[in-house]
């Protein structure tokens, strides 16, 4: 018997492949993915890419959105007007204020809450999580209405309590006060967004193997050391993700409360760049100015996103 296996099939008897079916397969592989992608690509084009591109164009044009009129090119005029406007300067400073001010609510408090509730068992865990999560799913308009009622200048609960405890002598018009308005917008947005980070950090925590904690506790690490040396590094990708989202979206998150509670006032002290953009475009009908602001916003936040992304790649640890 031979040690080698020989072919028992006559190769010549095999049917050759049809050139036609080979071409058909190639065509199929080329077209099919795009057919599946088409619906979302079309929607993305209509709602995202086309408006973005037209914003780029409108930033260099002047247009009042009056039907029948056409935009006229004005070069860099919109940017000059924008940068020399006093309101815009305030809005930039406020945007910074909101962006930095939201970080405790989007990262620090959620991180603490997620770690604190992680080891809980049974129903209470879900009760706690629901408590943090409910504000997040409430509609911003109703949240705005609730807080407006609480802080109402004449018959609000907060004024009432402060008076009863003798902390103030007369009612405060919180949302008309240059200092309170800004801080209240920040607090309300923060309160609403706590659940966002908490839920993401909680999810990330469940992905960390229990074995690591058993191993590290056998080595004698206390809870703080466990948090610093194990939890924090292993959560780093999620922390960077939430950080990025918080930085990029905080102007968006505050928008609804600015619009509902203060309309940017008093004297523009609570506005941010997002609200200014909206005001230029839809109150002042100055589309060019709005688009110029949007373009600046796009570039600045694009740079932030790019830098953060690189930092994440460098410092976040992915356990795969």
């Amino acid at each position, binding site marked *: 018997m031979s040690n080698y296996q020989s072919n028992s099939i006559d190769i010549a008897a095999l049917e050759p492949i049809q050139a036609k079916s080979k071409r058909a397969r190639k065509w199929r592989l080329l077209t099919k993915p795009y057919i599946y992608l088409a619906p979302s690509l079309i929607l993305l084009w209509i709602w995202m890419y086309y408006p973005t591109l037209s914003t780029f164009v409108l930033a260099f044009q002047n247009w009042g959105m009056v039907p029948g009129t056409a935009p006229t090119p004005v070069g860099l005029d919109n940017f000059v007007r924008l940068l020399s406007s006093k309101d815009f300067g305030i809005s930039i400073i406020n945007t910074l204020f909101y962006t930095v001010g939201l970080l405790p609510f989007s990262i620090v408090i959620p991180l603490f809450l997620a770690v604190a509730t992680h080891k809980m068992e049974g129903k209470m865990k879900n009760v706690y999580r629901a408590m943090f999560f409910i504000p997040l799913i409430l509609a911003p308009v109703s949240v705005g209405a609730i807080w407006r009622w609480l802080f109402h200048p004449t018959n609000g609960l907060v004024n009432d309590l402060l008076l009863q405890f003798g902390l103030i002598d007369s009612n405060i018009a919180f949302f008309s006060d240059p200092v309170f308005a800004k801080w209240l917008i920040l607090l309300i947005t923060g309160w609403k967004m706590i659940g966002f980070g908490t839920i993401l950090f909680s999810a990330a925590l469940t992905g960390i193997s229990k074995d690591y904690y*058993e191993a*590290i*506790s*056998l*080595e*004698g690490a206390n809870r703080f050391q466990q948090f610093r*040396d194990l939890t924090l590094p*292993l959560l780093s990708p999620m922390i960077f993700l939430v950080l990025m989202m918080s930085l990029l979206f905080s102007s968006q998150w505050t928008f609804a409360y600015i619009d509902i509670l203060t309309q940017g006032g008093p004297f523009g002290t609570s506005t941010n760049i997002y609200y200014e953009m909206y005001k230029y475009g839809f109150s002042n009908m100055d589309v060019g100015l709005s688009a110029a602001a949007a373009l600046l916003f796009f570039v600045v936040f694009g740079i932030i996103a790019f830098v953060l992304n690189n930092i994440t790649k460098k410092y976040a640890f992915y*356990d795969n």
Partner: protein
Amino acid sequence: MAQITLQNLKKSFGKTNVLKDISLEIKDGSFTILLGPSGCGKSTLLRILAGLEEESSGHIYMDTKEITYNEPKDRDIAMVFQNYALYPHMTVYQNIEYGLKIKKIPKAERKQMVTGVLEMVELTDHAQKRPNQLSGGQRQRVALARAIVKRPGAFFMDEPLSNLDAKLRNHMRQELIELQAQLKTTFLYVTHDQVEAMSMGTHIIILNQGEVMQQGTPKEIYTNPQNLFVAQFIGSPPVNIMKQGDYSIGIRPENIRLVQAFDPAEDTYQIDGELLSTEQLGGETIYRVKTEYGKLNVKTPSRWDSIDKPVQLTFSKEDVLFFGEDGNRIAPQYELLEDLRVAPQLHFA
């Protein structure tokens, strides 16, 4: 170095009793194996001893000191986990060093200790790598190194080889035996693999449904099983059990001989059978034979010749294990074998 003593240890989860009153001594410097099928409570027992889980009642002593209520870190043990639990964001070096850092050992001394252990497990060249850059066997060695560097009184290992492929597992088995011989420290090793237990252990404790079935040296366990469970659990293929009324008799596959024809001068007992299948393992051959007492396994040194279907089996009475109706081992009852005695007239006819 430590002897671990367990006194009336019990554990229940809700109404399920996972460990039912376990009292044991794990001898100082022994390589003790906790062996049992999955769900027998062996891992729970190890975790209770490590302090990772709470016992329901009972006492644990390390030498003469009671450690029942000690924190895991205060028990002078090191543990190797099934999936190693190496900190993924730390290098090999940092993984090994971490515990020493927590203990506030000075840096120079730490370095000396870590380097020494790295050499011992032959990972010096990989010190700066992350766990995900290592092979399974290397990770295993890092996990060992992390345990060794603590110089604990006892090493606890929870199925540490089960994530390795067969070849590497054989290799690591030998390494662990050599390591234990070198360290002379108590090893407590949990496994469901009887080959690991037999080959590595100086002492084996067999658990089933939360109870100790038997404990002893590998030789005692194999040659002198105290009950049906142990007899059937140890050995591959498992012992052949034949029912004789309320009693069971057991014969290990390697103690049954396959003969061409009975020789009444030599063979006292006979079982006629029909060959069902043959398994060639290279070094040995396993035959599965259908008989009136059920299907029996026969293990012989390798035979490559083909055998006729009707086969004849024989054995010596010294190799037979007898079990009572409760499954416990009883003194030999050779009258139970009368049915199997070779009937000379059949062969002289």
